[in-house]
């Protein structure tokens, strides 16, 4: 199912733990910082946008409220005029007011309008036009512009059409008063007679456009942001760049604004830049729109710049930190490595510092223990080798024991003098075979057959020397013949049996040498019926042979025992049983070593 897994091979093989750790740290830090800064950037941008949208909405609501309050105020003035009895009477279509009576009415109404105007700086003018041709304004003497046809003015026509409802005009130049051309927003309303059905005239209140203009201009929506107003049919009521729009030098997103409901906002992103539109409806049909550019929202850029600077600094510091940390973490490892290299070169006397008991500390401690053990083992091997060599030397000495040689040669001479030729030949050939067996072969272990031959030759010589004192018996099982044994294993024990056991015995002694197979070993026994040994002597036998013994060419029992153990292991060796006046029995156990 899965493809055979190839061994992992990194693109940039990192050879030290330090670099691996630093790279891992750096990647971790970089990725973490990148991800967090990306997320925080997104979040902060979202937050800024949301906040600014809320802010714009609030501001536009405020503008809306203000404009609304101006309009409401005009509405109230119109209500006041509507309910005023003088006004009603003055414009009502009755003929009982004579020309002389008109003046006080005119004066009273004009005074009323004037007092209203006096309290309201935002109102430009208040006027009433009766269908009966009568006309009053807030001024005592008003001359109307003879060229301006009042009936054709939009505010007049619309109010008439609406029949009693108030009408708000778009900003326009009011030209009905002679020599006055003021930008105003007009509220007009048809006034009804007391019966509430017959229309008597039109009432007009003009609001200075500068009020709305100032209001819109003072709104701070960033450096480039602005406020504009459209009416319900999408015509621009107010726009700071109205002339540019009329000249087609600039376009405004009127369609979207008209489609948007009150409180809606939308985002526009074109070559002029990303900007937010926030729309608020007034209750008289205008839509007030705030536009703010995403680019110059307060604090937006400087915060971003700071956060990027902090991020870069943070990355730099953390990269340095990662180098430092990885250096610190890998220092004990490098120390251990250095020590190991010394050990590699053969210096076992070093010891690495064990710092904290962490993994590396434990590693160091184990390493120290290991080095100690190796050192001990090496010493042991050296000692063993030394002992072995010593044993071999002694073995060699034992073989060519000079006393034994003199004695044997003496015996041969003596036998020759006696003219016992056959015996001389027998003894000389036995002696020759004896030496050949020991010297010629280099190997440490030999077939048991060779060892038997060797000990037979030896005993032959001794028998000829101690004819009437020594008897010997050889009892080797045939089963042991295929196995091997250490060479010259038995001679020292036989020698001991003859020299210490039988020679001191008054009558004839017998040495019996047996070889048999047990379940998992081969056992040799050298038994004599000589004088036997005391406990002390038995104990002394195990000690290393003294100078005298060595000179004599004797070989320590302990040395043989050690030789067996070194060669075959601790499970094998020599055991001695001895009884005074009874004899001694030496048991030698060796493993079964196949030819």
């Amino acid at each position, binding site marked *: 199912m899965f493809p055979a897994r190839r061994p992992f091979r990194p693109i940039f093989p990192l050879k030290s733990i330090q670099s691996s750790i630093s790279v891992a740290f750096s990647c971790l830090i970089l990725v973490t910082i990148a991800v967090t800064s990306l997320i925080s950037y997104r979040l902060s941008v979202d937050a800024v946008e949301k906040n600014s949208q809320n802010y714009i909405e609030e501001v536009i609501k405020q503008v809306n409220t203000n404009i609304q309050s101006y309009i409401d105020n005009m509405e109230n003035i119109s209500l006041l005029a509507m309910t005023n009895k003088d006004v009603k009477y003055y414009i009502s279509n009755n003929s009982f007011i004579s020309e002389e009576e008109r003046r006080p009415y005119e004066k009273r109404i004009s005074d009323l309008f004037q007092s209203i105007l006096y309290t309201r700086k935002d109102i430009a003018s208040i006027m009433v036009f009766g269908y009966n041709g009568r006309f009053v304004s807030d001024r005592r003497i008003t001359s109307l512009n003879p060229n301006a046809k009042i009936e054709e003015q939009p505010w007049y026509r619309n109010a008439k059409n609406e029949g009693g409802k108030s009408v708000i005009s778009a900003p326009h*130049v009011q030209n009905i008063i002679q020599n006055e051309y003021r930008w105003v927003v007009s509220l007009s309303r048809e006034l009804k007679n007391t019966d509430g059905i017959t229309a008597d005239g039109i009432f007009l209140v003009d609001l200075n456009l500068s009020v709305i203009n100032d209001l819109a201009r003072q709104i701070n929506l960033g450096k*480039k942001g602005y406020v504009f107003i459209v009416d319900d049919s999408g015509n621009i009521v107010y726009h700071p760049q109205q002339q540019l729009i009329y000249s087609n030098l600039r376009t405004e997103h009127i369609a979207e604004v008209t489609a948007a409901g009150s409180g809606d906002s939308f985002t526009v992103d074109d070559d002029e830049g990303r900007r937010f539109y926030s729309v608020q409806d007034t209750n008289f049909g205008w839509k007030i729109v705030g536009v703010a550019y995403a680019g110059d929202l307060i604090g937006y850029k400087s915060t971003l710049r700071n956060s990027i600077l902090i991020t870069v600094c943070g990355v730099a510091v953390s990269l340095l930190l990662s180098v430092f940390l990885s250096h610190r973490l890998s220092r004990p490892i490098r120390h251990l490595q250095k020590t190991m290299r010394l050990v590699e070169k053969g210096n076992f006397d070093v010891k690495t510092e064990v710092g904290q008991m962490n993994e590396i500390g434990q590693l160091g401690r184990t390493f120290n223990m290991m080095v100690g053990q190796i050192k001990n083992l090496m010493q042991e091997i050296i000692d063993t080798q030394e002992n072995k060599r010593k044993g071999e030397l002694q073995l060699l000495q034992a073989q060519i024991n000079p006393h034994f040689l003199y004695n044997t040669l003496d015996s041969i001479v003596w036998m020759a003098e006696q003219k016992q030729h056959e015996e001389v030949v027998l003894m000389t050939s036995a002696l020759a075979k004896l030496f050949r067996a020991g010297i010629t072969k280099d190997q440490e272990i030999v077939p048991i057959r060779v060892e038997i031959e060797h000990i037979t030759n030896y005993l032959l010589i001794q028998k000829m020397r101690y004819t009437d004192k020594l008897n010997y018996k050889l009892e080797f099982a045939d089963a042991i013949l295929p196995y091997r044994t250490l060479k010259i294993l038995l001679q020292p024990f036989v020698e001991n049996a003859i020299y210490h056991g039988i020679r001191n015995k008054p009558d004839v002694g017998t040495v019996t040498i047996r070889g048999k197979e047990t379940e998992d070993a081969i056992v040799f026994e050298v038994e004599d019926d000589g004088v036997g040994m005391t406990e002390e002597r038995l104990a002394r036998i195990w000690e290393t042979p003294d100078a005298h013994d060595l000179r004599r060419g004797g070989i320590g029992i302990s040395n043989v025992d050690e030789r067996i153990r070194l060669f075959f292991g601790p499970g094998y060796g020599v055991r001695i049983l001895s009884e005074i006046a009874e004899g001694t029995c030496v048991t030698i156990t060796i493993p079964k070593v196949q030819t």
Partner: protein
Amino acid sequence: MRIQRFTLVLALLLLAAAVYAVFYFKLYQASAGQEKTVTLLLKSKNVRSDFWQTVSAGAEAAAKEAGAVLEIHGPLQETDADSQAELLDEAIDRKPQAIVVAPIDDERIVRELQRAQAAGIKLVVIDTPSKLKPAPVSVANNHLEAGRQAGMAVVRATRDKPYLAIVSDFKDSGVSAEREKGILEAISPYPASYVGTYYGEDSEDKAYEIVKQALARKPGLNAVVALNEAAALGAAKALKEKEVTDRVTLIGFDSSIYQIKLLEDGSLKAIVVQKPFNMGYLGVKAALQLIDGKKTAKTTYIDSLIVTRDNMYSPENQKLLFPFNEK
């Protein structure tokens, strides 16, 4: 060795980060840190001059749109070349990135503009062409086209039988010459349509006299084009006096409250109005484009609009005739 190599790589990485950061902020500051500075030098900064106030408003609109810093200066009188030269001198010393200037026709102004060019300040000339060589980027009213529009209006009003007189100001006025040329171009297809051009020297009385005499000498005269306000007022007075306002078509240039009143009462048939807001706006916009190193048209012409009694209160024309300036 290994550690050294790694440290090297890391150091390079850090260096790259540092370079990136520095580079980033350099770019950043170049784009946003430094605000563009533009100085606008008008012929007049008089608050009573609706024309120049509207130019200022247009210039401010352009500056706000681009987030640039705009300074506006100008002498009180349109003919005060001395103080304009002085203001220009001061403006150059403040070293804005660009100067938008409506130069008064004078040698000193040309010298100052040369100094500005030498200082590496971008120059945009608005309203009146400058004698500066090489010619700087200019944004101006197309007076020839405006004259042509006036001529066409006369042709229409006289039902293809124009017979007109032109009341100009001075012979050496560049603007008036252009307008005159445009008018003559418009009526050239019609035979015997041109009475002559008279120079009223910016005086209402002289224009009045000129038109009175012209009416007396040429009874067939059916149109007068007044190239400036004084000429229009004088001509209107003469026409009213002779009670021939219905028969003789009078066309004026530029808006003022007096001309508007003449338009309302019908003695002026039409006025050709400029768009000073657009001039200010496009002038500053051209300057900003020069700062950005973008290509700009050598000359940008602003068209004029012909306003008659019938359309003078349309939303668009109201804005042009009655500039709404914050005073």
